[in-house]
């Protein structure tokens, strides 16, 4: 039972980071109709930028944390303006390939600046574990979950109540109607990419604190696909729920199935779930069903 709870906790921690990355992913899809294969690289860039500030420039972690957020917003703006803006109206495959190309470029940039080796954050959170009932949790886990949920809450409120958030939802719903109401669709697109980069970057910082930082962090982005498909591609609550479920599923299969069948099940289990979901309920829990009429 303790083992189960332990797995559950680590699953929720990883799952909350999935949820953050998935939030950005869903946001881009909702607002701009683009599937972003570079989401994992956004996370990686966030992790590296913060690491660089902390280790090379010796900026205190919390200042670096907020500076990283600023950097990611700027990067998001640049990417949207340079690469994505010309692609409006192009076929899906072009846009998919474009984001894949983008991920290559980001990977290249990170490797050129920081090299290919594994890096670790200096110790920032106290290593004294916290006991919650029978479960032992390290502090960095608690911070990650706390921040992940804080951000998820902030953005949920942002979409619900702030004028910009409402504008974004309007654009997601119907671009033409939004345009005629005086909403700048371009601004909304730019904002979507900024927010997506920002939340992924924050996820990256915490993931980096837990696991260390290396180039394969970008792979994390591909594992967000099961989460968003499970929740529904265009649903923000769906992204959060899907992220948590996939995180827990991964931890549980890793803990229980790996010793039986040999390693690697945690990597593949989400994708098996993905295929099953696509077969029986392609629009996930909360996704909007597309009904096509002749």
């Amino acid at each position: 039972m303790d083992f189960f709870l332990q797995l559950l906790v680590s699953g929720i921690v990883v799952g909350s980071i999935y949820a953050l990355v998935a939030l950005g992913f869903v946001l881009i899809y909702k607002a701009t109709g683009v599937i972003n294969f570079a989401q994992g690289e956004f996370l990686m860039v966030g992790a590296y930028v913060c690491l660089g500030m902390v280790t090379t420039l010796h900026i205190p972690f919390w200042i670096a944390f907020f500076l990283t957020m600023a950097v990611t917003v700027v990067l998001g703006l640049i990417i949207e303006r340079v690469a994505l803006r010309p692609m409006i109206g192009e076929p899906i495959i072009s846009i998919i390939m474009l984001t894949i190309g983008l991920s290559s470029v980001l990977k290249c940039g990170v490797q050129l600046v920081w090299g290919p080796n594994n890096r670790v954050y200096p110790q920032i959170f106290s290593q004294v574990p916290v006991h919650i009932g029978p479960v032992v949790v390290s502090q960095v886990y608690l911070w990650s979950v706390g921040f992940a949920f804080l951000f998820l809450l902030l953005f949920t409120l942002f979409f619900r109540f702030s004028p910009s958030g409402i504008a974004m939802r309007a654009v997601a719903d119907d671009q033409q109607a939004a345009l005629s109401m005086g909403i700048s669709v371009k601004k909304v697109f730019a904002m979507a990419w900024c927010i997506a980069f920002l939340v992924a970057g924050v996820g990256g910082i915490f993931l980096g604190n837990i696991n260390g930082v290396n180039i394969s962090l970008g792979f994390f982005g591909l594992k967000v696909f099961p989460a968003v498909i499970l929740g529904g591609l265009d649903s923000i609550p769906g992204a959060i729920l899907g992220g948590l479920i996939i995180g827990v599923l991964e931890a549980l299969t890793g803990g229980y199935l790996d010793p039986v069948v040999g390693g690697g099940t945690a990597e593949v289990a989400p994708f098996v779930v993905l295929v099953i979901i696509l077969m029986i309920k392609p629009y996930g829990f909360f996704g909007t069903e597309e009904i096509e009429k002749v």
Partner: protein
Amino acid sequence: MSAHICGDYKTSYKEDMVLFQTTFSKFWIIAFIVALYALPPLMGNYVLYVGNLICIAVIGALGLNILTGFTGQISLGHGAFIGIGAYASAYLTMKMGFPFIVALPCSGVVTALFGMIFGIPSLRLKGLYLAIATLAAQFIIEYLMVHMEFITNGVLGMMVDSPSIFGFSFDTDLKYFYLTVTLAILATMYAKNIVRTRPGRAFIAIRDRYISAEVMGVNLFKYKLMAFGISSFLAGIAGSLWAHYVTIITPEHFTIGVSIEYLAMIIIGGLGHVIGSIYGAIFMVLLPEVLRLISEMLSGHFPMIVNQFAALKEGIFGVIIIGFLVYEPDGLAHRWQMIKAYWKLWPFSY
């Protein structure tokens, strides 16, 4: 007075569908094929090595172009299908003792079966969802390659012999080139022919507007599965050839990166152009080789370039893809047509 016919002047559908539109192009294509067979003995091993890789890539890219370029079904799992072909061929020749000439088509058929299984969801899923489903196929197949050790030997990989057909062993780059180039030409002819017959027109109809296609009597399920089958058959052939060429295969050879590379080939070459697959394959095989040459030349002046080579290669790859998508979305095939059109009436182009 007889009028001089110029430009695109055709009076029947039959004329519109002939393989060689002009005697001029027929002449040059035949000359090119003769050169492909005549010149290799004069080439060095390195050129032949690159040539082999190109021919194998051409076969794989043709397969993906039929599926993605002509039928419009995005596949992110092509690398895994090539892997299935490679493992099938390796298993059939090394563990079951089949001769290569049987194993080659068999590996194509096995891959086609797998491709059709993963193609079944395509009836319900479109666009993005299908892309994600094939992405899942890629990861699941990769996992199986690592973990089905009784077939694949897991991460250790499999040793494969150079193939021989009726006692003739293709054990040098030169001999192997004749094998790959012959199959690449056959595959090109096959692709060229299939797109001008009913299945090909059905594929294009499905790509352009599947509802209209269905209304016009195209059986969506049948033709989508067919596209998946043909595409993975060619992927299987490419995989088998690749396995017998490099003689050792491991799951690392068939990752998502390979799938992306093949997608890049058909996008750079031109989606929905048979000739585009060839341009794209040549481009994507030559790119790393050219980059390597450049970095070797520059390494005297900038020693750091060697250490950063892998990263730079990836970055340049990304920049090229983005550049093509933004500035030349129809690929090299379209650019080539523009160049031809420009010279046709030069210097009086108006």
